[in-house]
């Protein structure tokens, strides 16, 4: 099947996904379950990675900006910029594409190969709407919170690393963080996050929903989903940056 056909099928899938849920109470139950599965369960990995990456960014900055003509507070400034603009929204999304994307593909794919999706269809349930819409809404609600947490923990991790290694004083770091603060950078970061959250929920869902075969194919579909989600995130990141910041 060519890429154009896949793209068409993907958008046809979305048309089915965005229909009014058949039963509000069941939709709400599914939504809370998904918030837990793909949101709350990702807090740990987000916090861990953000904290240490923040620390590494500060160490790298400090070691590469040793020129006496460059003020030390620029380390804090550069750390904030890299975390807000790129690391938290983009890199975290790629990491979540691996963690959450493979979960979405394998859970929906397993339902497909074990006829659970057929069972839903036979009952008269719009299976795409029932299975995918709660995942999209949960991602869109929860990922901005995860990314915000990632930004704060990254900045905090950077401060801890910088101060503990004596590469920058806390005062300089805080001055750097407050230098040239543009609120639009946070808006840009959140816009990217919402777009990436949509991609992370829908591309793996597509790969899982249309899988054919058995468990081996579900595994292959998971890998393919993670790869394609990452590719689409990187490409969209380029276009969004071009549109929003240039």
């Amino acid at each position: 099947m060519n890429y154009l056909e896949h793209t068409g099928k993907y958008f046809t899938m979305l048309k089915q996904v965005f229909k009014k849920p058949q039963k509000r109470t069941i939709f709400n139950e599914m939504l809370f379950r998904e918030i837990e599965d793909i949101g709350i369960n990702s807090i740990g990995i987000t916090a861990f990675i953000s904290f240490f990456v923040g620390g590494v960014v500060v160490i790298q900055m400090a070691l590469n900006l040793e020129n006496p003509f460059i003020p030390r507070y620029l380390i804090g400034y550069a750390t904030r910029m890299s975390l807000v603009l790129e690391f938290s929204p983009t890199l975290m999304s790629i990491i979540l594409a691996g963690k959450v994307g493979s979960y979405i593909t394998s859970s929906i794919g397993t339902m497909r190969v074990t006829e659970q999706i057929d069972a839903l269809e036979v009952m008269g349930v719009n299976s795409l709407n029932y299975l995918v819409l709660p995942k999209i809404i949960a991602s869109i609600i929860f990922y901005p919170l995860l990314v915000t947490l990632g930004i704060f923990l990254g900045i905090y991790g950077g401060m801890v690393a910088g101060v503990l290694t004596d590469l920058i004083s806390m005062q300089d770091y805080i001055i750097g963080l407050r230098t040239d603060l543009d609120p639009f950078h946070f808006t840009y970061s959140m816009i990217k996050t919402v777009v990436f959250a949509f991609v992370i929920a829908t591309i793996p869902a597509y790969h899982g929903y249309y899988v054919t075969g058995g468990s081996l194919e579900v595994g292959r579909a998971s890998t393919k989903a993670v790869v394609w989600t990452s590719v689409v995130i990187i490409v969209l990141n380029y276009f969004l940056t071009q549109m929003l910041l240039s």
Partner: protein
Amino acid sequence: MIEVKNLHKEFNGINVLNDISATFEKGQTSLIIGQSGSGKTVLLKCLLGLFEPERGIISFDGRNHSELAINTKRKLREEIGMVFQGSALFDSLNVEENIMFPIKMFRNKTPKEMLLRVNEVLERVNLVNSNKKYPSELSGGMKKRVAIARAIVMNPKYLFCDEPNSGLDPQTSTLIDNLIHEITVENNITTIINSHDMNSVMEIGDKIILLKDGCKAWEGNKNEVFYTDNEAVTSFVYSSNLFKKVRDVYTGNIK
């Protein structure tokens, strides 16, 4: 009653079902039998609306499926119960939630009323005190019972079963067959079972349709199976030595 007229289905230009016509009566258990790859599952999926046939008519009590509006089709599906080959229970839900799912989705009942109905059907399939178990904690036979309970919880008019006793021991298979047959008679529903199990044919085959290479090769009932000279039937049914011997005893041709 379900009527099928001149049903034709193909995949990538290859004929899978060829001009199938049949009538499935209310209160009867009809079996579609045939070798693997003969088109049984495709026929069942066409009847269920999971596959759209190229040609032909499928009507449910006079309602032509292909002419129904999408919403009416969805409504019609609420009248259908289905037992899948692998049971297709939702892994994330326990037995009670699995059975309750269709009522919760399509009926406005209080939790108490729903639980009452769930317990009623669980009792009917002889599976009490398993409400809180998850599918992974159930044996194959228990899974099939839960699947049957889920299929009948909405009081369907039509019940479809895809190889309901595959992977089960002969004793459990007979129990499941009898259970489906009893439910069919009790509730006066139209039941269609896909099977290649000859025990089922002998036990509950009010009507039997044999498919061969996507065509209807024979139609009859459990008694006629033993008398017919139809080559497709004899080669399918009597490929087992056990059944050859049973036939010989039955017809008095014991050598």
